[in-house]
């Protein structure tokens, strides 16, 4: 499994504020990777560094085996839909396709036009008058039309209504199925990504809390409920990610590669959202402890 993005101790400072610090991660190729984390985790900064828009203050990053996007050869291999899907408001949809064709030697005009037609976008309409969903779709078409090997999307659905969200992700999945494409998309909501991602990375304050294929994560995490018990007294090989207690009862989210054999526990299937939230909560608690 090769990595599409590999970063080592990556950091970005704005004046005296570190937007990202000491971020080491590896994003495997051939996946639709969801990068999840609370606001301020450094997701956008990381993605902007990966696309070459920002230069890191410290550390190194390689995208598709080279430093990100300085030369056209590298720029052509990565497609990017930035946060809020910026487009030229004064240009029409057709003119955007023309921009894509003029600025990208590998531009796939047939693919782009077919997508626009399928979406029912009016070629003559100014991009500034498109709805949020249509705008995002146009930005996605531009990013896909350049035939990238890696597609990076920064909070692509954050501002879309539920229907537009569903349509956008559907289109994205179709593109992934048609082309040999690795995808990295960020969101602060797991529920956005649950349907489409097969690999999850949870990022909290620049740190990777958990990363892995979704199936594997779901198979190794369990939600246990049973009589109240001290989470520190669990058997070896079983890591408690989060614990909540009521008077007599404990609910634990645990990670283990083995089976849960203790009959005292009721084991239930964990959702990806519960899992990600548990890791974020754990990281937040740890951070508080560090600050003390």
């Amino acid at each position, binding site marked *: 499994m090769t990595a599409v993005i590999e970063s080592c101790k990556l950091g970005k400072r704005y004046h005296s504020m570190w937007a990202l610090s000491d971020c080491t991660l590896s994003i495997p190729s051939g996946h639709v990777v969801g990068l999840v984390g609370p606001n301020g985790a450094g997701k956008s900064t990381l993605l902007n560094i990966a696309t070459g828009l920002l*230069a890191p203050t410290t550390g190194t990053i390689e995208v598709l085996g080279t430093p990100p996007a300085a030369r056209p050869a590298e720029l052509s291999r990565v497609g990017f839909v930035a946060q809020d899907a*910026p487009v030229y408001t004064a240009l029409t949809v057709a003119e955007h396709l023309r921009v894509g064709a003029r600025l*990208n030697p590998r531009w796939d005009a047939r693919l782009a036009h077919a997508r626009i037609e399928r979406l029912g976008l009016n070629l003559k309409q100014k991009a500034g008058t498109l709805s949020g969903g249509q705008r995002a779709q146009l930005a996605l078409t531009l990013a896909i039309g350049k035939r990238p090997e890696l597609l990076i999307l920064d909070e692509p659905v954050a501002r879309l209504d539920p229907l537009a969200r569903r349509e956008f992700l559907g289109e994205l999945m179709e593109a992934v199925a048609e082309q040999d494409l690795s995808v990295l998309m960020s969101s602060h909501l797991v529920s956005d990504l649950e349907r489409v991602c097969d690999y999850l990375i949870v990022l909290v304050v620049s740190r990777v809390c958990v990363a892995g294929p979704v199936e594997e994560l779901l198979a190794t995490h369990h939600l246990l409920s049973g009589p109240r018990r001290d989470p520190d007294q669990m058997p070896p090989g079983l890591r408690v990610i989060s614990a909540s207690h009521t008077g007599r009862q404990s609910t634990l989210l645990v990670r283990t590669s083995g089976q849960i054999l203790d009959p005292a526990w009721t084991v239930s299937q964990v959702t990806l959202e519960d899992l990600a939230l548990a890791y974020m909560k754990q990281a937040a608690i740890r951070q508080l402890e560090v600050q003390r």
Partner: protein
Amino acid sequence: MMWLTWRQFRLQAIVATAALAAFAIALAVTGPQLASLYRADGMTTCGDSGCAALAGDFLSDAGSYQIMYGLCTVGILLAPALIGLFWGAPLITREFETGTFRLAWTQTITRTRWLASKLVLPGLAAMAVAAGLSLLFGWWAAPIGQAARLTHGSFPLGMGPFSLPDFDAHGIAPLGYAAFAFTLGVTAGMLIRRTIPAMAVTLAIFAAIQVAMPLAVRPHLFPPARTTVAIGSFAGAEHVGNGHFSFNVMDLPSQPGAWIISSQAVNAAGQSVSSSAACEGRGQNGNQCLARQGVQIAVTYEPTSRFWPMQLAETGIYLALAMVLAGYCLRRLSLRRY
């Protein structure tokens, strides 16, 4: 990339073309009328001596054209500033403000090429517009300029090719101003990243430079010519009592239109003098007294033949500044990431 640059610049290009066309039509309609008035007043056939008297008549006949002359001058002086404000400053800030730089810079094109193409097309257009305005105006205004030179100041504008608003509105200098103002706007936009503050900074710096240039730089571009003028032929003397006097030479009869850089009274030995006890209290006869003592006026000036060399030099300076700013922007963009 040229296509995108053109597409983004299209509206401004249309506005500029319309403005230039309106200007050209106005001058093309009135220019021949002005020229025929010039002929009708006998200015083309007056020879060497009689023109000065006719020039005053011509200028009063051409009263409404004088207003137009003033308006055109103001327009040509403002055009580079407007180009800097409305073409230069928003060129990049608009991309920052709408986030479209993230779209542009992730296409298969380096940001150096992106900026170079954004600089070239509007930059050349800016120079073309400014040069078009000033050359058209120069053609149109030639009769007024010639007449005004002969009347020595009855018409405040057109006092000579070097007079303050005229040098800046004629020839090719406006082309240099426009190129400089445009790149100044782009640079301000790149550093400040917000349109309105970038426009304000552009205007402030450009205005300051346009004031500093004629006052501090232009007089030193070429070493001035020197001559002396006999006091007897000079009327503008001021005798302030105690034998003190001063002369302020406005123009040289032998060099109509020349730019007087400095003038001062000197004695027979060539030393500067400003008082003479011997000539104290002579009133109107002070000049003759000073002349008898050998006092003359030493004048340094730029002859009118220096007009085009000075235009070229000044245009060159502004173009060089524009190139430096453009180079700085390109370099900064290629080295720094946003």
